[in-house]
C-alpha cells in the first residue's frame, strides 16, 4: 500500500484572496475521500495545490515523507495523477492515444509504449468500459464516453495518488455510478483517491470519508453520515434539508434555500 497524503497548515492566497486557510488533513491510502462544500469553498484550489500545480503560501503537502512541492516535475507526474474539471481534448485523437498520454510521465509516447504501458492502457480502458472504442476519435464520443476516456487517461498513469475534480458533474446517473465505482475500485487497490463532488447523496454512497470545506476552511472531516448532518447542511450550504440513512448511503432531500448571511464559520470537527 502506498503512503497517504499529509496536508499540514495549508494556506493558499491567489491574487488578493485567501482561498485556503490553515488546512490540516491526513488522507490515508486505500480510501476514497470526497471533498465537498459550496461554490467558492476552495475545493478545486485544494486539489490543484495537492497536485502540485499551485504553490501554497504557507504549509506543506507531504506524500510519504516527501514534499509534493519539493519534487521534480517528472517525479511528481509519476506519483500524482490529476483529472481536471471539465477537461477536453483539442484534437480528434483515437481513444487509445488519449489514454496512452497517461504514460508520458513514464517516458512512454503513445506510439512507443513499452509492454508495461500497453498493459496499463488496456487495463484502464477495460476499467472504464470503453473496450471496442479504442480507435474511435475522442471528439466523436458522447459526453459520458469522453469523460470515461479522460478518466482512463488518469488511471493509466498508475500513480499512487489519484485526484479527480468533479469527475461525475456532467454525467447521466448510470455513468455517475460507473465512474464512482471505478474510483472506489482504485482506492481498494491501495491508491489514495480524492474526488471533489457536489452531489452529496451520491458521494455518501461511495465515499469512505468526506471532507467539508467552507470559505477556505475545514468544517468537518469524517464518515459521510457523521459529516452530512441537517444542521451542517444548513450552516455550510444554507439549505434546509432532510437527511436519512438509506442503504449504504444517505438520502438527502433539500427543501428550501435559507437567506444567507455572512455568519461566523462553523468550526465543529468530528
Amino acid at each position, binding site marked *: 500500500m502506498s503512503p497517504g497524503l499529509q496536508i499540514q497548515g495549508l494556506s493558499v492566497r491567489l491574487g488578493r484572496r485567501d482561498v485556503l486557510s490553515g488546512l490540516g488533513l491526513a488522507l490515508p491510502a486505500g480510501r476514497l475521500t470526497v471533498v465537498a462544500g459550496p461554490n467558492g469553498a476552495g475545493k478545486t484550489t485544494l486539489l*490543484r495545490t495537492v*497536485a*502540485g*500545480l499551485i504553490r501554497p503560501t504557507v504549509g506543506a503537502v507531504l506524500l510519504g515523507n516527501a514534499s509534493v512541492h519539493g519534487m521534480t*516535475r*517528472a517525479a*511528481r*507526474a*509519476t506519483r*500524482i*495523477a*490529476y*483529472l*481536471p474539471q471539465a*477537461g*477536453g*481534448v*483539442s*484534437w*480528434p*485523437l*483515437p481513444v487509445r*492515444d*488519449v489514454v496512452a*498520454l*497517461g504514460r*508520458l*510521465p513514464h517516458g512512454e*509516447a*503513445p*506510439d512507443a509504449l513499452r509492454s508495461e504501458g500497453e498493459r496499463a492502457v488496456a487495463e484502464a480502458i477495460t476499467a472504464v468500459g470503453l473496450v471496442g472504442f479504442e480507435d474511435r476519435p475522442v*471528439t466523436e464520443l458522447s459526453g459520458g464516453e469522453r469523460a470515461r476516456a*479522460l478518466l482512463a*487517461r488518469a488511471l493509466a*498513469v498508475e500513480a499512487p495518488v489519484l485526484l479527480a475534480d468533479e469527475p461525475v458533474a456532467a454525467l447521466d446517473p448510470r455513468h455517475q455510478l460507473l465512474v464512482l465505482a471505478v474510483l472506489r475500485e482504485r482506492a481498494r487497490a491501495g491508491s489514495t483517491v480524492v474526488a471533489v463532488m457536489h452531489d452529496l447523496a451520491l458521494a455518501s454512497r461511495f465515499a469512505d470519508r468526506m471532507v467539508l470545506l467552507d470559505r477556505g476552511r475545514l468544517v468537518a472531516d469524517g464518515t459521510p453520515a457523521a459529516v452530512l448532518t441537517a444542521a451542517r447542511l444548513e450552516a455550510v450550504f444554507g439549505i434546509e434539508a432532510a437527511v436519512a440513512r438509506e442503504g449504504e448511503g444517505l438520502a438527502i432531500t433539500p427543501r428550501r434555500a435559507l437567506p444567507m448571511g455572512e455568519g461566523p464559520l462553523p468550526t465543529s470537527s468530528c
Partner: protein
Amino acid sequence: MSALLALILLLGLASLTVGPAPIPFWTAAKALVSDEGSASVIVRDIRLPRALLAVLIGGTLGVTGAALQGLLRNPLADSTVFGAPQAAALGAVLVLYFGLAGALSFALPLAAILGALVSIALVVVVAGREGSTLVLVLAGLAVGSLAGAATSLAISLSPNPFAVTEIVFWLLGSLEDRSMVHVWLSAPFLVAASAALLATGPALRALSLGEETAESLGVNVARTRLIVVGASAVGAGAAVAVAGAIGFVGLVAPHLVRPLVGHDPARTLLPAGLAGAVLLTAADCAVRLIPSGVEVRIGVLTAVLGVPVFLWIIARRRSALAEAPA
C-alpha cells in the same frame, strides 16, 4: 515521410532547371558537381541558393505552423498571430526607408531578425513570463498591428519613389536573386528554430489535453510556451529577412499532412515541415514558369493558393471550429 523527402529532392533538382535560361535536368545535376561553364554559374550561383532557401524557409514555416497550432490547440494558428513576421518586415522596411541598404544587402536580414526578436521581447514583457496563451495572442496581435501600421507609415512618408517601390516589392515576398550569403545568414536561425520546435513534440502532445493536465503530466507549460513563441518568431523573422513576407505556408502545411499522419501534434511537426518545404519549392518553380513580364512574387502566389485552401478548411470544419478553444 520518405515520399515527402523524395518529393523535396525531386522538386529541388527541378528548381535548378527552370528559369529564363532552361537547363536540362542532367546538365543541371552535373553542373552542381562539375564545371559545365555558364550552366554551372547559373545553377550554383543563382538557382542553388534559391532552391536551398525555398526548402529551408518552407520547412521552417511548416514546422512553425504545426507547433503553433499544437500550442494554441487551434488549427488556424500561424506565426502572424504573434506579430513576428510583421515586426521583421518593419525592421527590413526601416533599412530600405532610410536608404541604409538595397533590397539585397545583408543589413536587411539582420534588421528583420532584430525586428522579430524585439517583437517577441515586447510580447513577453507585456504578457508576463507566466502569461496565459490567450494573453500572449492578444499581445502578439497588438504588436503585429503596430508593426504593420509603422510599415504603412514608412511607405506613405517615404520621399523617395524608388524606396517605395523597393519596399512594396520586397513586402510581396520573393526568392529571386538571392545568393549563398543569404543562405548562410538565415540558415542558422532557421535550423535552430526548427530544431527547438521539433523538440517540443512531447509537450505539445500532452497539451492536447489542456494546460492543467499537461502540467500534471510533468510538462513545464510556461517554458514550452516561451520556446514555441520564441522559436517561431526567430524562424519567421529569419524567413521574412531573406524572402520577404510569405504567408499561408505555415497555416496550410499541417492540414495537408494530418489526413496521413493523424492529429497528434508531435507526429505532425516533421511531416508539416517537409510539406512546407515541398510547397514553397513547388511555388518557387511555378513563379518562374508562369509567363509574365516580371517574375510573379512568390508571396503573392502562396497567398492566392493558400487563401482558398484556408477557406475550404474553415467551411469543412465549421462545426468543429465553433467548439475549438481560443
